[in-house]
């Protein structure tokens, strides 16, 4: 079965420090990986997807098939990055998204 694991429920870093939110997935085929974000009092929204290979709000994520990981990184955290982050997997056959349990990121001033 497809599964997404985000090992950290909570992550707290200081402003200006690097951030890495971990995501590991379980799937034997070719996955599509996404990061969704939910800011306080806002809707869940797409942050980035691996097929785009782009940087959004300074965040990047690289799909590592060997380690089955899709970690989210930002070199210098900003206070507005504080939010709930969800890693999600979409497989080739099934079209649905499988979400991890989420990581609450807090950026301290």
């Amino acid at each position: 079965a497809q599964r997404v694991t985000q090992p950290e429920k909570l992550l707290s870093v200081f402003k200006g420090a690097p951030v890495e939110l971990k995501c590991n997935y379980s799937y034997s085929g070719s996955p599509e990986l996404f990061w969704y974000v939910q800011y306080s009092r806002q809707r869940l929204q797409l942050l980035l997807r691996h097929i785009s290979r782009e940087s959004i709000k300074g965040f990047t994520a690289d799909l590592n098939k060997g380690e089955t990981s899709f970690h989210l990184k930002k070199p210098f955290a900003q206070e507005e990055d504080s939010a709930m982050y969800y890693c999600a997997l979409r497989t080739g056959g099934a079209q649905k998204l499988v979400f991890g349990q989420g990581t609450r990121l807090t950026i301290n001033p």
Partner: protein
Amino acid sequence: EAGVAQSPRYKIIEKRQSVAFWCNPISGHATLYWYQQILGQGPKLLIQFQNNGVVDDSQLPKDRFSAERLKGVDSTLKIQPAKLEDSAVYLCASSHLLGADIQYFGAGTRLSVL
């Protein structure tokens, strides 16, 4: 463009009662999803429609949950009878193409079953 609309925002019911949630997707989006998000967990897909047909309802507890999208636009999710463990946020999302595009989420309905 207007986003995904959901109502009500909050609902409190007693166990064994019934409840219904409504969702209106973004105009032109053929695919509509209902997710259940229990506190402390990520969203879990309950049912997926393309137009008015069901694509995936493998995780929908069909003994108590039902959903419809009769005209291929808005959708209703119903729980009858509700159990304590149904307390969750129910999210609706829509996308333009089946499995090929970004999902846009509504604000959700927070259900408390007492």
